[in-house]
């Protein structure tokens, strides 16, 4: 969805949502409890018609317009890539935790 903690550059809304989340630790009494907040995603509900729907193609079929599942690191910018690769050369990836298959126990 992309703005689950509040609209970008709207610190008042972001603060309100965090307060509501924190208060829920006291008010929710059952596992799986859900509180619906009064905030609106956007003023216009038109986006609901397009959410999770494949785009129609001109030939009448349906386009698979999902992002490809690349298996190499997908950086936000080239500067990030260069910095991460420079760190990798000295053997560092500060704060990166890579888990091994063997840690995923088999039943």
């Amino acid at each position, binding site marked *: 969805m*992309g703005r689950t903690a509040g609209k*970008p550059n709207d610190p008042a809304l*972001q603060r309100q949502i965090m307060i509501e989340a*924190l208060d829920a*630790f006291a008010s929710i009494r059952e596992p799986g409890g*859900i509180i619906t907040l009064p905030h609106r995603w956007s003023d216009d509900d038109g986006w609901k018609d397009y959410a999770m729907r494949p785009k129609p193609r001109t030939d009448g079929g349906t386009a698979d317009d999902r992002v490809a599942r690349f298996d190499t*690191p997908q950086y*936000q910018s080239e500067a990030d890539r260069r910095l991460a690769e420079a760190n990798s050369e000295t053997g560092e990836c*500060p704060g990166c935790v890579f*888990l091994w298959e063997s840690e995923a126990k088999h039943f």
Partner: protein
Amino acid sequence: MKSRRGNAQGVTPASEPNNPVDYIARTREQYDKLGYPPYKWVRNEIPPPLAPLAKPLSEAKVGLVASGGIYRTGQVAFHYRDDFSFREIPADTPTSELRATHFAYDLTDARRDPNAVFPMETLRNLTDEGRIGGLGAHAYTFMGGIYSVRKVRDALAPAIADRLQSDEVDLAILVPV
């Protein structure tokens, strides 16, 4: 929780604008239209135990976990093929050093303002206000588009839970995308 169903297209008419989109119906429809077999939902039959908060929020140490593919500049970014690694983000990381990468949500808001999916600065401000007692030393982030249930259930989730316990947080907020 009560669930409210929309019409056959999965959205209710404009007269009920607050009804949520029926993502389960939409997902089934999308997979079907793309010619894939039906999506297999995870079923968790046993509810998780609920641990009541033992102290007021103003004394509580808060942990933050987020699945939106947030990393700090300098760290290796996530890839998109079942990447079940995670990142430690120090609690004092400037927002300007945060990045987002993920294949399954629109990154526009997160890249404009990371607090939209990773409210660390928001929580720092709440600590300064005295609303919460403090923050865990690190937040933990991952790229939640992982199709292997086993990797999440048996490796990633327990690893993050261990970290939160070592950090001695009293509660943790998980922000999905």
